[in-house]
């Protein structure tokens, strides 16, 4: 059994302790101002750089993966989204992929059942992924309440919806629980399923533990070891308005652990597999129409290659061709 996840877990715990200790010994400014700013800077510069680096390379061929009937004869019904020929089709295909994880929705699991091999439709991975990503999205939007003043309507509306269960006080946010749940399920999948465990490495566990750490510290601060929310917002507003400062008291060390984890995650994105959030938009098997035979695709570096011309070919075989009554250019 591959237990490499323990290293990642250990790394996240140590990083958490560092932030905790830092806050206790009075390094609040480092963990509350300097590191978050650096992280955001690294995130934007790194992200934009990575995408520009991708953009620099051309797309020499239109290599769409077609997942449905092509558009040919009028009376054959094409599959305009899974095998798009138009820009609109491509956009819908991409939206389904990005918003609904269309391809994961196809997932199957192979099973040898006696003499028969079966490929069962399985939705667990899709479900966990949807749960995780959408929770994360809602949590991020919700957190904007700490970074803007006045808080716009859409954020408070989202909070109302997210808190509609009205369980406990402060009211439970569904997204927080599902984020922790989704990340945990994805983690358990990596630890417990043999094949997934076999392909998982530190770079897979680290961000999961980090996100679990973020969710846990966040949940602790909201429901259990509370912080003074107004003081927290004083700090975060300082960051967002470029008037950084550390509030006098009311913000616990736990908050700095939370913030440090977030900073790490944000700075980690451009250098890791988490760039899939940008990469998905640029995948040539998905974002190109399968209209190759209708519209010529241009390869900017289309090379000149040495070909074996008909003339050279006829040179090789002229006599044999003549004997066989195959027409030739030069008698």
């Amino acid at each position, binding site marked *: 059994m591959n237990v490499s996840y323990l290293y990642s877990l250990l790394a996240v715990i140590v990083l958490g302790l560092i932030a905790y200790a830092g806050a206790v010994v009075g390094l609040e400014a480092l963990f509350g101002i300097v590191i978050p700013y650096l992280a955001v800077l690294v995130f934007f510069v790194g992200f934009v750089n990575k995408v520009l680096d991708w953009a620099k390379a051309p797309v020499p061929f239109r290599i769409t993966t*077609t997942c449905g009937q*092509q558009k040919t004869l009028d009376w054959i019904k094409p599959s305009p989204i899974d095998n798009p020929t138009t820009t609109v089709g491509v956009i819908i295909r991409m939206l389904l992929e990005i918003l609904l994880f269309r*391809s994961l929705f196809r997932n199957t699991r192979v099973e040898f059942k006696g003499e028969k091999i079966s490929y069962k439709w399985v939705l667990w991975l899709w479900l966990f992924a949807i749960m995780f990503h959408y929770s994360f999205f809602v949590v991020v939007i919700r957190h904007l309440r700490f970074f803007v003043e006045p808080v716009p309507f859409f954020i408070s509306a989202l909070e109302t919806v997210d808190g509609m269960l009205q369980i406990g006080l402060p009211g439970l946010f569904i997204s927080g629980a599902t984020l922790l749940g989704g990340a945990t399920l994805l983690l358990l999948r990596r630890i417990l399923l043999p094949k997934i465990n076999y392909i998982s490495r530190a770079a897979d566990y680290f961000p999961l533990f980090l996100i679990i750490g973020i969710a846990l510290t966040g949940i602790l601060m909201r429901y259990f070891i509370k912080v003074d929310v107004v003081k927290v917002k004083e700090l975060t507003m300082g960051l967002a308005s470029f008037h950084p400062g550390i509030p006098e008291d009311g913000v616990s060390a736990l908050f700095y652990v939370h913030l440090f984890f977030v900073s790490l995650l944000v700075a980690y994105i451009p250098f890791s597999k988490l760039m899939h959030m940008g990469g998905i938009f640029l995948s040539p098997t998905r974002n190109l129409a399968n209209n190759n035979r209708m519209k*010529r*695709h241009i390869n900017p570096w289309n090379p000149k290659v040495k070909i074996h011309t008909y003339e050279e070919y006829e040179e090789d075989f002229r006599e044999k061709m003549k004997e066989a009554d195959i*027409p030739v250019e030069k008698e």
Partner: protein
Amino acid sequence: MEELPKPDEMYESIDHTPPEEEWEKIESPIKRGRYAYPAKDKNLAIMEFPTPGEWSPADEEWPLPDNWQQIIHEGFKERLEKYRSLKIFMDTCVRCGACADKCHYFIGTGDPKNMPVVRAELLRSIYRNDFTTAGKILGKIAGGRKLTKEVIKEWFAYFYQCSECRRCSVFCPYGIDTAEVTMMGRELLNLLGLNINWIMEPVANCFRTGNHLGIQPHAFKEMVEFFCDDIEEITGLKLNPSFNRKGAEILFITPSGDYFADPGTYTFMGYLMLFEALGLDYTLSTYASEGGNFGLFTSSDAMKKLNSKMYAEAKRLGVKWILGGECGHMWRVINQYMDTMNGPADFLEVPKSPITGTVFDNAKSTKMVHITEFTADLIRHNKLKLDPSRNDKFKVTYHDSCNPARAMGLLEEPRYVIKNVCNYFYEMPENTIREKTFCCGSGSGLNTEEVMDLRLRGGLPRANAVKHVHDKYGVNMLACICAIDRAAFPPLMEYWVPEVGTTGIHELVANALIMDGEKERTTDLRFESLKEEEDEADEG
């Protein structure tokens, strides 16, 4: 060839439990039955690749040039600059594992390095180590790996255990296409002269003689004339196809497998009979006598060199458009590469069926039409006289070839044709057909005897689905539109489902086709009785 285990022994031996050791630590990837013989110097030389001399993958020391690391590094860099696909596929994988059990080679071997994700990691680990910030700083922790000779062996082993079928790409949430990764991996190996002869020889042959099998023009003509004799015996009609004829309306190109060996030859006879029945103004070419393109399995340059003949010949002969035969990877090249590489084909006209008047707008730039598109249109317009009962002894199922399915979307046309020429048609289970179809196990140049173990294992998912419809409906004929399929399925079926034969679609079409002036047929194109009972009596 090595002794193969019995089918049930092989089946029972498949174990998907991952090994104890991490894949990075598993050495000696070269296993008997899983590697093909290396490319011969003479073939490499024709295509201007480095020539390493005589060697075997089983050798301890491989014939690498002194600066092999530099060659690979620079080759990798160049490809990263040329292909956005490569960069994206190197950077975005999250190892979710959705692809892991989608590969027929993994299903059949249980070898973890045949999981598409790991196959790509073989390349990705080097990419991280050499080209990413995180990899340069963190090395192994970031998933990086040093480029060693062992890695080269591993690449050779596993990029030649991938048939570039793209099934994993259908399931990947980022559309990561292992075919693309394998193609890049093979290109890099080519820089060191490491290729397999089963690919390089066809490529070299095709470059010089116009087809993979090295059939010279007069021999090609003789073969076709031989088919015409057979057709005359069956139908009483004398056919007289033309070769390299200038001014024909249509140039017809099909893979050389179709005129080289059974059962492809019957498909070729089918084309000839169909064109005769239509009175089609077409010609065959000895120069462009290959539909397939093993260059696709070699490098983009090799692909371009071989493909160039189609347009060049169409231009020389002055035809209006090109009709293409039944072949899998040929259609990936035609649909996704040809126009870009060797176009624009502005000397041709938008294809228009001279029989029905249908304009093939879907091919208005490439100017090349797939034969099942052409035939489906004919049947739709009632232009063919058909007697499907002549195929009544066949209970047919249809295998979607990887490339027409996933690089084109040619799904309904062949089915429409089959349903009109056969009375008994049964689909295989849903998750094994259409875009989820399984490879025959021998695609992308792996159709050679010495990797029979790999081919039988890789073909297992397909064979098992055939077995399912064989047991359930009595299916005894597997139809396909791919020349590699037609070569790969006979041994595959014989091993896993011995009662099932292999056919091309146009063999079925020609069986059912009533040609003007034909005599009453008593046999099919294989000279076998049209009725099942007599067959059994013969066998008895």
